[in-house]
């Protein structure tokens, strides 16, 4: 009984250490946490270098359009974290070819998985690009690659999928 209480206390203490999964945690390439607007709607495109080229172009285009129409929406691209900084640097360079010259998109890294699961792990992201949406009401929604590109490359469909999740 005594041990059960100790374990329970430790469990609750540990829970306090765990970051709420519904809060977007944002890191730069050096693993330093950077600030973001938690009260806004944050669209996060999950990307890695094996992502389909045409899909990434299309998805990025859709998300930029959505941000233009609703300036309260923040747009990020999440790259898979790695212990090897070179891997993350190569992904960042690869990503830069998709981003239009006049658009600014913050690149974030799926780092610090010690106290929580990485997003790529939690949402079983094996195929990308895919989308995570962190809502201002603390809800997280995930749109998989299959949902968006499984059967077609349709801009209107992707637009509708994202807008529907945001609540338009």
């Amino acid at each position, binding site marked *: 009984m005594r041990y059960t209480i100790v374990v329970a206390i430790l469990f609750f203490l540990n829970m306090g250490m765990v970051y709420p999964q519904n809060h977007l945690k944002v890191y730069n*390439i*050096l693993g330093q946490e950077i600030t973001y607007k938690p009260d806004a709607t944050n669209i996060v495109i999950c990307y890695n270098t*094996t*992502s*389909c*080229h*045409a*899909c990434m*172009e299309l998805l990025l285009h859709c998300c930029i359009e959505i941000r233009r129409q609703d300036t309260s929406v923040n747009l990020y691209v999440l790259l898979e974290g790695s212990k090897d*900084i*070179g891997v993350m*640097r*190569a992904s*960042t*360079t*690869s990503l*830069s*070819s998709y981003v239009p010259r006049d658009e600014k998109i913050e690149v974030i890294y799926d780092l610090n998985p010690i106290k929580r699961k990485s997003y790529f792990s939690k949402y079983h992201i*094996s*195929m990308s690009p895919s989308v995570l949406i962190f809502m201002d009401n603390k809800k997280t929604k995930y749109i998989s*690659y299959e949902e968006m590109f499984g059967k077609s490359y349709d801009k209107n469909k992707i637009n509708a999928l994202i807008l529907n999740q945001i609540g338009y």
Partner: protein
Amino acid sequence: MFGLILVLLGLNTVAQTKVIENPNIPKIENSISEYVSVDTILSFTNEVAVNRSLKSCKWENEIVFTNFNTNKNSDTIVIYRINIVDANVDTFYVYEKRIRERMKSVYSSSFDAIAYNGSKIVLNLYDELYVYELDSNHKLNKIGKYTVAEDFREMAFLNDSVLVFVQNYYSASPQTAIYLYDMLEHKVINKIFPHFNTPLLSFFSPQKNFDIYENRILWANRGEYSFLLFDRDLKKLDSVSVVNKNWKQLSKKAKRKASKIKKTHAPDIIYCLNKGYNNIDQLQFAYILDTNHMAIGVHRAKENVLYIDVWYRIGGEWKIKHNALYDDGFMFKPERVIRRNTLPLGFLGGSKVYFMDNKLVSISDKAAVENPINLSVKDYFMAQNKYLETNEYFVQIFIYSHTLTD
């Protein structure tokens, strides 16, 4: 033919008896380091490659490359020419109006291929050839832009006036092809469709199954150890196939599963094959060293090591001269110091490599340390990480001397 197979089977028996006990501690007598040594390292720190934008080619003693891509600030294409004898670098500039827009319109971030023949430079983007000529003032002048109907992935000059186009891609139709394209008539004058045993593997890099040397064209397979040599008229000169019962191929189940996916959905196919891919043996690259020598790079799944066989032609038959040489590369202890003859060859890591007589050129688009010579492995990686914290990888060229054909 039967005799040749018997010889090769015999060679293979020899190769099989050579047991690699621990690939992480290579035996020095089997190391490529015995035969190669770096002479010169050229760093192009302002050239950041994006999505394999670096395109290069060779012609006699020269290497030509461009790293032009849609991330560049203008439509001026920069082309570099390196003389590998004296390491002299010439830089050429040519303006191509709205070329970045054109690239984006065909979902590309760079040119697809480059070819050079001493006086002409050809750039390929999608179905277009941009042709330039060097004048006596060392300036590049545009000759014209030509559209080609053939679908291809690689190209190279066979001689002054004939370009070779090579196709080897699962979702292409035909999947494999070698075309001879007359640069004067601007039309295909000959073509063949060589067999490639595992087209699904064309989605995975590194892959280098085609090479040209003095009117000879080399075509190698990937899922099996075999290669073909063609002459300037695409007539078969030689055919070599090494039979090995232990060679691990892509399973029928994996092939069947992948074949059900739409051919154009490359990421889905790659994902489907990814697990099995690491467990198969592959011929990963093939190069002609000179008229009588060839280098074949093989990845053996069991040992997880890439090694090089050097072949030579004697009495009309191909025989192995150096068997299973492997690059000890960075597979050594952190305190070991990188010397000129222990610098890993880039092509084992997927960079582009060219053999020219007694020289070997390796081009890397993932460089972060300008001079790794005399650094310990530990210091090298520290310097690399430090650089990459605030900078991007750059292009680097290694010029080696080699004695593989001596």
